[in-house]
Protein backbone atom coordinates (compact mmCIF):
# COMPACT_ATOMS: atom_id res chain seq x y z
CA UNK A 1 0.00 0.00 0.00
CA UNK A 2 1.73 3.17 -1.08
CA UNK A 3 0.59 6.62 -0.11
CA UNK A 4 1.27 9.45 -2.47
CA UNK A 5 2.12 11.93 0.25
CA UNK A 6 1.78 12.56 3.94
CA UNK A 7 -1.29 14.65 3.23
CA UNK A 8 -2.92 11.71 1.49
CA UNK A 9 -2.08 9.50 4.45
CA UNK A 10 -3.76 11.84 6.91
CA UNK A 11 -6.77 12.35 4.66
CA UNK A 12 -7.45 8.61 4.39
CA UNK A 13 -9.42 9.09 1.19
CA UNK A 14 -11.73 11.58 2.88
CA UNK A 15 -12.40 9.32 5.85
CA UNK A 16 -9.66 10.76 7.99
CA UNK A 17 -12.00 11.84 10.77
CA UNK A 18 -13.38 8.34 11.21
CA UNK A 19 -10.17 6.37 10.81
CA UNK A 20 -8.04 8.64 12.95
CA UNK A 21 -10.90 9.10 15.39
CA UNK A 22 -10.88 5.36 15.93
CA UNK A 23 -7.14 4.91 16.23
CA UNK A 24 -6.77 7.95 18.43
CA UNK A 25 -9.56 6.72 20.69
CA UNK A 26 -7.65 3.44 21.01
CA UNK A 27 -4.44 5.21 21.93
CA UNK A 28 -6.23 7.49 24.38
CA UNK A 29 -8.02 4.59 26.09
CA UNK A 30 -4.83 2.58 26.43
CA UNK A 31 -2.84 5.55 27.67
CA UNK A 32 -5.58 6.48 30.14
CA UNK A 33 -5.73 2.94 31.44
CA UNK A 34 -1.99 2.87 32.01
CA UNK A 35 -1.99 6.25 33.74
CA UNK A 36 -4.89 5.34 35.98
CA UNK A 37 -3.17 2.11 36.89
CA UNK A 38 0.03 3.89 37.78
CA UNK A 39 -1.92 6.26 40.03
CA UNK A 40 -3.65 3.31 41.65
CA UNK A 41 -0.36 1.60 42.37
CA UNK A 42 1.13 4.80 43.79
CA UNK A 43 -1.77 5.39 46.13
CA UNK A 44 -1.70 1.77 47.29
CA UNK A 45 2.01 2.13 48.11
CA UNK A 46 1.30 5.42 49.88
CA UNK A 47 -1.28 3.69 52.03
CA UNK A 48 1.17 0.96 52.93
CA UNK A 49 3.78 3.53 53.91
CA UNK A 50 1.25 5.30 56.12
CA UNK A 51 0.15 2.01 57.70
CA UNK A 52 3.74 1.04 58.35
CA UNK A 53 4.55 4.34 60.00
CA UNK A 54 1.49 4.02 62.20
CA UNK A 55 2.46 0.47 63.08
CA UNK A 56 6.03 1.43 63.92
CA UNK A 57 4.89 4.41 65.94
CA UNK A 58 2.59 2.20 67.98
CA UNK A 59 5.25 -0.47 68.51
Amino acid sequence: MTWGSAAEFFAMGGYGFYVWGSFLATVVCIAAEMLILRARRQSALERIRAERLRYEAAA
Partner: protein
Amino acid sequence: MSSGLIHWFRYASPPSFYPLAGRMTPWFAWLAAVSGAVGLWIAFFVAPTDAQQGESYRIIFVHVPASWMSMFLYLVMAGWSGLGLALNTRLSSMMAHAIAPTGAMFAFLSLWTGALWGRPTWGTYWVWDARLTSELVLFFLYLGYMALRAAIDDPRRGDRAAAVLALVGVINVPIIYFSVQWWNTLHQGASVSLTRAPSMAAAMLAGMLIMAFAFWMYSIAVSLVRVRAIILEREAHTEWAYQLKEAT
Protein backbone atom coordinates in the same frame (compact mmCIF):
# COMPACT_ATOMS: atom_id res chain seq x y z
CA MET B 1 1.22 -35.25 44.59
CA SER B 2 3.95 -34.34 42.14
CA SER B 3 6.27 -31.49 42.92
CA GLY B 4 4.89 -29.71 39.86
CA LEU B 5 1.45 -29.43 41.47
CA ILE B 6 2.82 -28.10 44.74
CA HIS B 7 4.87 -25.61 42.77
CA TRP B 8 1.74 -24.06 41.25
CA PHE B 9 -0.23 -23.81 44.46
CA ARG B 10 2.63 -21.92 46.06
CA TYR B 11 1.80 -19.05 43.74
CA ALA B 12 -1.83 -19.07 44.80
CA SER B 13 -0.97 -16.85 47.73
CA PRO B 14 -1.02 -13.19 46.79
CA PRO B 15 2.36 -12.33 48.35
CA SER B 16 4.06 -15.10 46.36
CA PHE B 17 2.33 -14.17 43.14
CA TYR B 18 3.20 -10.49 43.47
CA PRO B 19 6.87 -10.76 42.45
CA LEU B 20 6.09 -13.36 39.80
CA ALA B 21 3.55 -11.05 38.21
CA GLY B 22 6.11 -8.27 38.31
CA ARG B 23 8.63 -10.40 36.43
CA MET B 24 6.07 -11.54 33.85
CA THR B 25 4.74 -8.10 32.99
CA PRO B 26 7.64 -6.78 30.87
CA TRP B 27 7.53 -9.82 28.59
CA PHE B 28 3.89 -9.31 27.77
CA ALA B 29 4.33 -5.57 27.49
CA TRP B 30 7.08 -6.00 24.91
CA LEU B 31 5.10 -8.60 22.98
CA ALA B 32 2.19 -6.19 22.91
CA ALA B 33 4.31 -3.29 21.73
CA VAL B 34 6.07 -5.24 18.98
CA SER B 35 2.99 -7.00 17.64
CA GLY B 36 1.05 -3.74 17.87
CA ALA B 37 3.68 -2.00 15.78
CA VAL B 38 3.63 -4.79 13.19
CA GLY B 39 -0.17 -4.81 13.15
CA LEU B 40 -0.39 -1.07 12.66
CA TRP B 41 2.22 -1.16 9.93
CA ILE B 42 0.17 -3.79 8.09
CA ALA B 43 -3.00 -1.80 8.73
CA PHE B 44 -1.68 1.35 7.14
CA PHE B 45 1.09 0.34 4.75
CA VAL B 46 0.41 -3.19 3.56
CA ALA B 47 -3.33 -3.72 3.40
CA PRO B 48 -4.72 -2.35 0.14
CA THR B 49 -7.59 0.07 -0.25
CA ASP B 50 -10.97 -1.60 -0.23
CA ALA B 51 -13.03 -1.41 -3.40
CA GLN B 52 -16.35 -0.55 -1.70
CA GLN B 53 -15.43 1.15 1.56
CA GLY B 54 -12.30 3.00 0.56
CA GLU B 55 -9.96 3.77 3.41
CA SER B 56 -12.67 3.76 6.09
CA TYR B 57 -12.52 -0.02 6.38
CA ARG B 58 -9.14 0.29 8.11
CA ILE B 59 -11.09 0.82 11.31
CA ILE B 60 -11.63 -2.94 11.45
CA PHE B 61 -8.00 -3.25 12.52
CA VAL B 62 -9.03 -1.94 15.93
CA HIS B 63 -12.78 -2.54 15.92
CA VAL B 64 -12.75 -6.30 15.40
CA PRO B 65 -9.81 -7.07 17.71
CA ALA B 66 -11.43 -4.93 20.41
CA SER B 67 -14.70 -6.87 20.05
CA TRP B 68 -12.89 -10.19 20.19
CA MET B 69 -10.95 -9.12 23.29
CA SER B 70 -14.03 -7.83 25.09
CA MET B 71 -15.73 -11.19 24.65
CA PHE B 72 -12.63 -13.27 25.34
CA LEU B 73 -11.79 -11.31 28.49
CA TYR B 74 -15.29 -11.87 29.83
CA LEU B 75 -14.80 -15.60 29.44
CA VAL B 76 -11.43 -15.44 31.19
CA MET B 77 -12.91 -13.29 33.94
CA ALA B 78 -15.71 -15.81 34.45
CA GLY B 79 -13.17 -18.62 34.45
CA TRP B 80 -11.11 -17.03 37.22
CA SER B 81 -14.35 -16.30 39.11
CA GLY B 82 -15.40 -19.93 38.88
CA LEU B 83 -11.98 -21.07 40.02
CA GLY B 84 -12.16 -18.69 42.97
CA LEU B 85 -15.55 -20.02 44.02
CA ALA B 86 -14.55 -23.66 43.57
CA LEU B 87 -11.13 -23.52 45.26
CA ASN B 88 -11.89 -20.61 47.59
CA THR B 89 -8.65 -18.90 46.59
CA ARG B 90 -8.46 -15.14 47.01
CA LEU B 91 -6.02 -14.67 44.17
CA SER B 92 -8.38 -16.15 41.57
CA SER B 93 -11.03 -13.59 42.45
CA MET B 94 -8.42 -10.84 42.41
CA MET B 95 -7.43 -11.88 38.88
CA ALA B 96 -11.06 -11.73 37.76
CA HIS B 97 -11.38 -8.33 39.35
CA ALA B 98 -8.19 -7.20 37.62
CA ILE B 99 -9.41 -8.19 34.17
CA ALA B 100 -12.81 -6.49 34.29
CA PRO B 101 -11.85 -2.84 33.63
CA THR B 102 -9.74 -3.80 30.61
CA GLY B 103 -12.59 -5.88 29.23
CA ALA B 104 -14.97 -2.98 29.73
CA MET B 105 -12.50 -0.67 28.02
CA PHE B 106 -12.37 -2.92 24.95
CA ALA B 107 -16.15 -3.20 24.89
CA PHE B 108 -16.39 0.59 24.93
CA LEU B 109 -13.75 0.87 22.24
CA SER B 110 -15.62 -1.64 20.12
CA LEU B 111 -18.76 0.45 20.40
CA TRP B 112 -16.94 3.73 19.72
CA THR B 113 -15.02 2.46 16.69
CA GLY B 114 -18.13 0.67 15.49
CA ALA B 115 -20.00 3.95 15.51
CA LEU B 116 -17.20 5.71 13.67
CA TRP B 117 -17.19 2.93 11.10
CA GLY B 118 -20.95 3.01 10.75
CA ARG B 119 -21.13 6.69 9.90
CA PRO B 120 -19.24 6.62 6.59
CA THR B 121 -20.52 3.16 5.71
CA TRP B 122 -24.20 3.37 6.56
CA GLY B 123 -24.77 7.05 7.17
CA THR B 124 -25.55 6.94 10.89
CA TYR B 125 -23.33 6.75 13.94
CA TRP B 126 -25.31 4.03 15.61
CA VAL B 127 -26.60 0.97 13.82
CA TRP B 128 -28.74 -1.50 15.70
CA ASP B 129 -27.08 -4.50 14.18
CA ALA B 130 -26.67 -7.74 16.08
CA ARG B 131 -22.95 -7.38 16.78
CA LEU B 132 -23.04 -3.82 18.10
CA THR B 133 -26.17 -4.40 20.15
CA SER B 134 -24.72 -7.53 21.74
CA GLU B 135 -21.55 -5.59 22.43
CA LEU B 136 -23.62 -2.93 24.18
CA VAL B 137 -25.23 -5.54 26.43
CA LEU B 138 -21.78 -7.03 27.13
CA PHE B 139 -20.59 -3.56 28.13
CA PHE B 140 -23.44 -3.37 30.66
CA LEU B 141 -22.53 -6.81 31.97
CA TYR B 142 -19.01 -5.54 32.64
CA LEU B 143 -20.31 -2.39 34.32
CA GLY B 144 -22.66 -4.44 36.48
CA TYR B 145 -19.81 -6.67 37.61
CA MET B 146 -17.62 -3.71 38.52
CA ALA B 147 -20.49 -1.86 40.21
CA LEU B 148 -21.41 -4.86 42.35
CA ARG B 149 -17.80 -5.40 43.38
CA ALA B 150 -17.45 -1.73 44.26
CA ALA B 151 -20.68 -1.61 46.24
CA ILE B 152 -19.72 -4.41 48.62
CA ASP B 153 -17.26 -3.39 51.30
CA ASP B 154 -16.25 -6.80 52.63
CA PRO B 155 -13.65 -8.07 50.15
CA ARG B 156 -14.46 -11.77 50.48
CA ARG B 157 -18.19 -11.24 50.13
CA GLY B 158 -17.57 -8.93 47.21
CA ASP B 159 -15.34 -11.52 45.56
CA ARG B 160 -17.95 -14.25 45.84
CA ALA B 161 -20.97 -12.16 44.87
CA ALA B 162 -19.22 -10.74 41.82
CA ALA B 163 -18.05 -14.26 40.93
CA VAL B 164 -21.63 -15.55 40.94
CA LEU B 165 -22.65 -12.61 38.78
CA ALA B 166 -19.82 -13.28 36.32
CA LEU B 167 -20.83 -16.94 36.01
CA VAL B 168 -24.50 -16.03 35.52
CA GLY B 169 -23.38 -13.50 32.93
CA VAL B 170 -21.21 -15.92 31.01
CA ILE B 171 -24.06 -18.44 30.76
CA ASN B 172 -26.27 -15.67 29.47
CA VAL B 173 -23.86 -14.25 26.88
CA PRO B 174 -24.61 -16.89 24.21
CA ILE B 175 -28.33 -16.62 24.95
CA ILE B 176 -28.21 -12.85 24.68
CA TYR B 177 -26.15 -13.05 21.51
CA PHE B 178 -28.60 -15.48 19.95
CA SER B 179 -31.64 -13.45 20.96
CA VAL B 180 -30.14 -10.26 19.54
CA GLN B 181 -29.32 -12.05 16.26
CA TRP B 182 -32.93 -13.24 16.22
CA TRP B 183 -34.20 -9.77 16.93
CA ASN B 184 -32.07 -8.30 14.20
CA THR B 185 -33.26 -10.68 11.50
CA LEU B 186 -36.90 -10.25 12.57
CA HIS B 187 -36.92 -6.55 11.96
CA GLN B 188 -35.78 -6.60 8.38
CA GLY B 189 -36.09 -2.87 7.97
CA ALA B 190 -32.60 -2.17 9.22
CA SER B 191 -30.94 -5.23 7.77
CA VAL B 192 -27.59 -3.60 7.64
CA SER B 193 -24.77 -5.46 9.23
CA LEU B 194 -21.37 -4.24 10.19
CA THR B 195 -20.26 -7.85 10.22
CA ARG B 196 -20.42 -7.94 6.46
CA ALA B 197 -16.83 -6.90 6.35
CA PRO B 198 -15.03 -6.54 3.03
CA SER B 199 -14.05 -9.89 1.60
CA MET B 200 -10.80 -10.48 3.34
CA ALA B 201 -7.60 -10.01 1.49
CA ALA B 202 -4.89 -12.02 3.20
CA ALA B 203 -3.16 -8.87 4.35
CA MET B 204 -6.34 -7.62 5.98
CA LEU B 205 -6.87 -10.84 7.88
CA ALA B 206 -3.25 -10.98 8.96
CA GLY B 207 -3.40 -7.41 10.21
CA MET B 208 -6.55 -8.11 12.23
CA LEU B 209 -5.11 -11.24 13.80
CA ILE B 210 -1.85 -9.53 14.71
CA MET B 211 -3.70 -6.59 16.25
CA ALA B 212 -5.86 -9.03 18.18
CA PHE B 213 -2.72 -10.72 19.47
CA ALA B 214 -1.32 -7.32 20.44
CA PHE B 215 -4.47 -6.47 22.37
CA TRP B 216 -4.32 -9.85 24.07
CA MET B 217 -0.73 -9.37 25.20
CA TYR B 218 -1.60 -5.88 26.35
CA SER B 219 -4.55 -7.21 28.36
CA ILE B 220 -2.36 -9.73 30.10
CA ALA B 221 0.27 -7.13 30.93
CA VAL B 222 -2.29 -4.64 32.24
CA SER B 223 -4.13 -7.30 34.24
CA LEU B 224 -0.87 -8.37 35.88
CA VAL B 225 -0.09 -4.78 36.84
CA ARG B 226 -3.61 -4.28 38.12
CA VAL B 227 -3.63 -7.46 40.16
CA ARG B 228 -0.40 -6.30 41.78
CA ALA B 229 -2.14 -3.06 42.74
CA ILE B 230 -5.10 -5.03 44.09
CA ILE B 231 -2.77 -7.24 46.12
CA LEU B 232 -1.13 -4.13 47.55
CA GLU B 233 -4.53 -2.71 48.47
CA ARG B 234 -5.81 -5.88 50.08
CA GLU B 235 -2.61 -6.74 51.93
CA ALA B 236 -1.95 -3.21 53.15
CA HIS B 237 -1.99 -4.20 56.82
CA THR B 238 0.42 -7.10 56.64
CA GLU B 239 4.06 -7.53 57.56
CA TRP B 240 4.74 -8.57 54.02
CA ALA B 241 3.56 -5.21 52.74
CA TYR B 242 5.63 -3.30 55.27
CA GLN B 243 8.76 -5.14 54.15
CA LEU B 244 8.26 -4.35 50.48
CA LYS B 245 11.10 -2.46 48.90
CA GLU B 246 8.75 -0.16 47.01
CA ALA B 247 7.00 0.85 50.19
CA THR B 248 10.01 2.15 52.09
